[in-house]
């Protein structure tokens, strides 16, 4: 028994590591699974054809998911009293959003677009619900314990939502920018400390450096993963 103690130590370390990894992976919103779930909706025939022959009947009908009204689009706008700025990106039924006030409030959200109904959630009760069409998205946004109606219009680059991450540093820094009507609003989150974001040049996303830290900045699309749970 004693002789195998070192192996037990290795096994415990491996078990703890794998368990924590599983917790992380399962806590992940897992865009891959959502995409996989969305695919059969678009084209159900191959799925049925691939289903194993012997047991076709126990296949439970998936809850009817309305196909998204719009495949890919981005919206940006503001709450009714200009309290917060809202940006929403949609792609293939998945939606992500960023809400911020440019100073101390921000939230990253993700969810779905079913038909023309948007439904997104984020940490600490943040939520965006609304409707979309080709030109605009109207609805309500909840963040930091408050709720406002919002109106956002369909936008094209360089307007839209941008995310910067400094993944190379153990101090996780993240910046969200919303570019709209020639202005921009953003919040920088440096390991939990929130503050106004530095200015972003949406035409030049390469080599963004903030306080000597390199950020990789991308224009966010609806299938990006922005929320960790």
């Amino acid at each position, binding site marked *: 028994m004693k002789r195998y103690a070192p192996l037990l130590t290795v096994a415990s370390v491996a078990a703890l*590591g794998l368990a924590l990894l599983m917790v992380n992976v399962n806590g992940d919103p897992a865009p891959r699974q959502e995409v996989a779930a969305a695919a059969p909706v678009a084209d159900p025939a191959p799925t049925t054809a691939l289903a194993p022959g012997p047991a076709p009947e126990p296949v439970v009908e998936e809850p009817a998911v309305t196909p998204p009204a719009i495949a890919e689009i981005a919206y940006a706008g503001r709450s009714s009293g200009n309290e917060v700025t809202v940006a929403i990106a949609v792609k293939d039924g998945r939606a992500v959003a960023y809400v911020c006030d440019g100073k101390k409030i921000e939230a990253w959200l993700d969810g779905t677009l079913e038909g023309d109904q948007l439904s997104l959630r984020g940490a600490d009760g943040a939520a965006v619900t609304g409707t979309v069409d080709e030109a605009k998205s109207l609805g309500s946004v909840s963040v930091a314990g408050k709720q406002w109606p919002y109106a956002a219009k369909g936008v094209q680059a360089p307007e839209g939502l941008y995310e910067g991450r400094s993944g190379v540093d153990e101090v996780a820094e993240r910046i969200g920018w919303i570019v709209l009507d020639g202005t921009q609003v953003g919040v920088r989150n440096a390991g939990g400390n929130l503050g106004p974001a530095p200015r972003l040049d949406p035409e030049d996303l390469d080599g963004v450096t903030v306080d000597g830290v390199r950020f990789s900045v991308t224009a966010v699309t609806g299938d990006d993963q922005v929320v960790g749970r």
Partner: protein
Amino acid sequence: MTIPKPEQRAPIATPFAPPPASSSASTSASSSEPPPARTGTAGLLVAVTVGTLVSVGLGVYGRAHEAAFFAVSIAGFSSGTAAKAWLATGAFVLVLVQVGSAMVMYGRFPGVRAPSWIGGLHRWSGRAAVLLTVPVAVHCLYALGFQDGSPRVLLHSLFGCFFYGAFVAKMLVLNRPGSPRWSLPVLGGALFTALVALWLTSSLWFFTTSGLTF
């Protein structure tokens, strides 16, 4: 990071003069379950090979897997990073205990006789140390991955992968009492070096940039 208990240590210390004969000598001195003589270097080779595979595997995972940038954080700390920094600091303190107790066991402090509990202290502090590092490493690998953006980050990534390989190799060597007598101190020293380097490139860096935050 455990060291064999005293009755296993004794045979390692005895075959001092002829290093090549160490495996047979320790085999004969081993009271119970004599391992085959060839386990000496072969066992070490196996251990180092497995350890290398672990290191490379971790590095490949950290590189190939897209950094999620999120991970479940630990309650009670202001941020996941602070939690990591303090867990790693705990491991760092324990690894100092590791080196101290190992030096006592190997008689490196003149006049200090190894007390009977030193082996237990070494084993359990080692287990605690490596377990403390696991949440940190999982967060690093899952949320950040293997990165090379700056020398500090590259060093940290390399040592992080190396650490677990060396750990596995050392555990496997411990499991083979016939291994060359230098193998344990070398692997233990490698572990100590790696952990100190990891601590310097992460926790100390964090404390100097963000202050001593919890």
